[in-house]
């Protein structure tokens, strides 16, 4: 059993799925599981953290924590973990987690295993593996030295547990006094799309250069919206200007691990496969039966995406109506 601290992440008062994954995994292993919750007006979220496995929630509610900055968040988190003898510190490998965790590791003179895809608790330590060379290989991470062990986990790698609404946690309020800060968020510009992010979605529908135009991506967007999926793209499609870079899946884009990845008109270049091969189920739709994408696909459809995708959308809609 270990003393585990999970950095709870919320945006606009909604907790992230990745936080539930971490709490669930820690609680299932019988650890003393703490959550650290930061923000403004977030105290009400403590109960939900308990439902997913937190035994104790440290709440830092302060106007200066409304927006995440590594500067301010690290000050508060370090205060909590240093005074309570944290053995393991977990966060999601999300835009916030990846920005923050190295700073905590440096201040704690500790090691950080980032972007891990497997996690097992062993006494007061953890056994983790992570992809290297963008998933072309994986490696186990060994921690050296005696400090706390920091791990950031890739979204969807652990799975979200079923919440137990009968569970409660002790909530303790963290005194916040923010010292000299060198960074400040002046504005958060919301994304135009209501679709989930490619790195967080359970289903990702991606398109390649075969889509031929930016407008044709509407085909994928329409299908994505039926199942609440994110829309991704290959590097070729991004380089051709069909999609913004933030949607790119691959070695020089995002690395994703959804439950279902649907590759439409993507040939499967090695650098694309690197970004999506840890997806649980992979569907490939491509006219070229020799395309390398079929080698990693669980279900292969040799066919024209312009015909198959609308038909598939129809089938998925029917399924949803039932």
């Amino acid at each position, binding site marked *: 059993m270990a003393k585990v601290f999970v950095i709870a992440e919320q*945006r606009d008062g909604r907790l992230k799925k990745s936080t539930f994954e971490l709490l669930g995994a820690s609680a299932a292993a019988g650890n003393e599981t703490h959550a650290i919750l930061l923000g403004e007006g977030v105290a009400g979220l403590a109960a939900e953290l308990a439902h997913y496995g937190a035994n104790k929630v440290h709440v830092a509610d302060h106007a200066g924590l409304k*927006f995440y900055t590594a*500067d301010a968040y690290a000050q508060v988190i370090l205060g909590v973990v240093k005074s309570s003898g944290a053995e393991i510190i977990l966060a999601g*490998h999300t*835009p916030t987690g*990846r*920005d923050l965790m190295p*700073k905590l*590791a*440096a201040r704690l003179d*500790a090691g*950080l295993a*980032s*972007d891990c895809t497997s996690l097992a608790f062993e006494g007061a330590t953890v056994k983790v593996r992570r992809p*290297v*060379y*963008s*998933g*072309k*290989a*994986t*490696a*186990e*991470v*060994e921690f*050296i030295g005696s*400090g706390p062990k920091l791990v950031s986990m890739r979204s969807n790698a652990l799975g979200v547990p079923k919440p137990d609404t009968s569970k409660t946690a002790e909530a303790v309020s963290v005194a916040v006094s923010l010292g000299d800060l*060198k*960074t*400040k*968020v*002046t*504005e958060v*510009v*919301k*994304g*135009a799309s209501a679709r*989930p*992010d490619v*790195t967080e979605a*359970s289903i990702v529908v991606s398109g390649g250069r075969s889509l031929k135009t930016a407008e044709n991506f509407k085909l994928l967007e329409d299908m994505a919206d039926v199942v609440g999926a994110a829309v991704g793209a290959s590097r070729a499609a991004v380089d051709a200007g069909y999609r*913004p*870079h*933030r949607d*790119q899946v691959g*070695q*020089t*884009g995002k690395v994703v691990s959804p439950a279902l990845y649907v590759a439409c008109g993507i040939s499967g270049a*090695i650098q694309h496969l690197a970004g999506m091969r840890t997806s649980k*189920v992979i*569907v490939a739709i491509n006219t070229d039966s020799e395309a390398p994408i079929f080698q*990693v696909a*669980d*279900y292969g*459809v040799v066919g024209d995406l312009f*015909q*198959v995708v609308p038909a*598939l959308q129809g*089938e998925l809609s029917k*399924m949803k109506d039932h």
Partner: protein
Amino acid sequence: MNIYVCIKQVPDTETKIKLNGDNSGIDTTGIKWIVSPFDEFAIEEALRLREKNPGSTVTVLSAGPTRVVEAIRTALAMGADNGIHVETPETADSNYSAKALAGALKKEPKVDIVFTGKEAIDDGAAQGSQLIAEFAGLPYATVVLNAEYGASSVKCKREVEGGAFEMLEVQLPALIAAQKGMNEPRYASLPNIMKAKKKEVKVLKASDVGVADADQKIRFKNFQLPPPKQAGKKISGDPATQAKELARLLHEEAKVV
């Protein structure tokens, strides 16, 4: 301005990865080494900042074995003024490398700004930028798509999830970690490639920059290649039949929709 760029040399994106004999790492035989793609945006941003501020210099740093001097030369050929190579072992982790680079920065008379790529595509740890900043005592902004440089601060547009952006103001001196798309990196011209050969690359040992074995915090071991995937199911028929069968399999067999 004294502008610095920290870069990493990595295997080319098209590299097929093979493991070494005891699975303690990869077989580097025949690998083509490149400057990590995100670092190219960092180099370009540094050069543009120098062009806007005449009299500035751009110094490129890289930590690693002797081969990384090639990466420094690539940056010099793009137009950087001089280089610093910090000799570190092949197996150094992010913490060790970052401490080495920060140590080299701290030996410089004055650092106004440091650029990096938001992550390197070899281990993809996305730790180096933040660690360098922390060890050098600098605030940072990562995954930056656009930066406006003021006299005492930089206004950064930082990419976060779901297509949202955070506008982050960072006080100078600071470290800025570039995201792809921050600019359009230039190619090295032939005259610049020739000139780069004559530019100075200073060499520092880990001991010169105050790094010791205890700065290694993690080690990668037991490397594995992804298990070969079993042949998937091919779904045949006309598009309507294919779609129907695929939807059924995703629902009943894979249980993902």
